[in-house]
């Protein structure tokens, strides 16, 4: 028995020792432009975010030991692809605002950042309620209000164009067909996204609407479809916000068997008035799922519909 234990231990130690020779590089490109917000905000970001979301990653001694090193490397590469404070010049003002709001939501709304295991090993990275409040105050101050859009005067001309030429949209890369009838469905909510400077209208097909009427929309039944139209926010002369330029329309189609691998939903989006399908390959919907995963408890839906009761 003791001999078996010794053999297993020996193999384990050998594998562990061999793993230390597997050390793909963690790229450290130069900082082109660092985040340029207020000093206290930058300090918080440095302590809690910069290791994975900048080119100034600082590895502790325990980060250098495999398998931890491989995991850390993956997190750093992935983290930088979503948000990199060292390339702040590669994004414009609008994009910076969107990235910061997205980050704030992962921290405060969903509590998924900073990663729990990271904070356990790097206690200074913990975002206390005080630090979160400071971040929130700063990021909310980035809302620049609704831009006045004098081109809204030409919307009526666009409407005429809409009626005369119906665009034929091609299928999404995952095979989902465009559903032109969505604009005739029941409206179940609206949203003003001041982080993205957009206005959204959310529609539900008959099956989804029935589930809402019955108060049984978690989960939505198979056959339910939700559509969301997104427009730029534009102001009129009085400062009221109205839908401006059309940005895109996206769909969630419920079929728990057909779409089992994508959380029971088929995901698709079409961009612009030309209705160009979003996504390069059929796995583009991983992006949709990544954003909707924090709301898995509400069947991956953010929208809280309002009911209409006689």
């Amino acid at each position, binding site marked *: 028995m003791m001999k078996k234990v010794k053999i297993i231990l020996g193999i384990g130690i050998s594998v562990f020792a061999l793993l230390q020779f597997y050390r793909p590089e963690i790229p450290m490109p130069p900082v082109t432009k660092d985040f340029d917000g207020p000093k206290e905000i930058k300090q918080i970001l440095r302590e809690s975010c910069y290791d994975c979301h900048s080119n100034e990653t600082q590895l502790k001694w325990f980060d250098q030991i495999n398998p931890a090193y491989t995991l850390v490397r993956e997190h750093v590469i992935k983290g930088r692809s979503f948000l990199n404070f060292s390339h702040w010049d590669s994004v414009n003002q609008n994009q910076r605002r969107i990235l910061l709001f997205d980050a704030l939501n992962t921290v405060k709304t969903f509590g998924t950042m900073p990663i729990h295991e990271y904070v356990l090993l790097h206690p200074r990275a913990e975002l206390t309620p005080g630090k979160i409040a400071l971040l929130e105050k700063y990021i909310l101050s980035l809302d620049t209000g609704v831009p006045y859009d004098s081109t809204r005067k030409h919307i009526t001309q666009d409407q005429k164009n809409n009626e005369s030429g119906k665009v034929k949209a091609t299928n999404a890369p995952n095979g989902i067909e465009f559903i032109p009838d969505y604009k005739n469905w029941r409206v179940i909510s609206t949203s003003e996204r001041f982080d993205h400077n957009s206005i959204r209208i959310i529609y539900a097909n008959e099956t989804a609407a029935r589930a809402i009427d019955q108060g049984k929309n978690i989960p939505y039944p198979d056959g339910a479809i939700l559509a969301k139209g997104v427009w730029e926010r534009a102001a009129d002369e009085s400062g009221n916000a*109205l839908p401006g330029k059309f940005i895109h329309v996206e769909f969630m189609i419920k079929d728990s068997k057909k779409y089992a691998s994508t959380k029971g939903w088929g995901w698709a989006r079409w961009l612009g008035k030309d209705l160009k399908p979003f996504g390069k390959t059929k796995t583009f919907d991983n992006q949709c799922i990544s954003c909707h995963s924090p709301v898995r408890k509400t069947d991956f839906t953010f929208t809280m519909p309002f009911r209409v009761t006689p």
Partner: protein
Amino acid sequence: MEHMKYLIISFTTLFIGSCSGDPKSSQKSYMNDQAEIAYAGVLPFDIRSAQLVGTMITEDERHAVLVWADSIAYSARVSHPRLTSPAANSNWLLLHWKQTDDPVWIGARIPGAYLYADHVQYDGKRFFYLRYNSRGERIDLTADEEQKTARLFSTIEYPDIP
């Protein structure tokens, strides 16, 4: 041994009892309760089957406004781009909610408390304005309120939608 037997029976019963049940009863509701349009039966037409023709967020009071048209008003929209060039006997409903912060996303505002529905009617010559409060009670508008609703209504346009 007897005690063991009864212990096993009770645990088994408890286990089966906790596992059984209609799976549908685990379905839950995820609604914006404060935005519910109660007493919708008093409104001149059913917005559940009507066509949405506009939306706006008012700058002064931060109201989320959604505008629905009945079939006559909507058909006329096709030939008249602006809502204010309608056919006779057209009806619209402008529903107002107080905006509130979206609880699941910092950076978004959604309809909060449902406030009232303004009914706009066109008889072929002039517009009439009425209000239904959140309890479904009909309210006559003051001259100022009518003017405000008329101004809002004239600003609404059909969204640019393919």
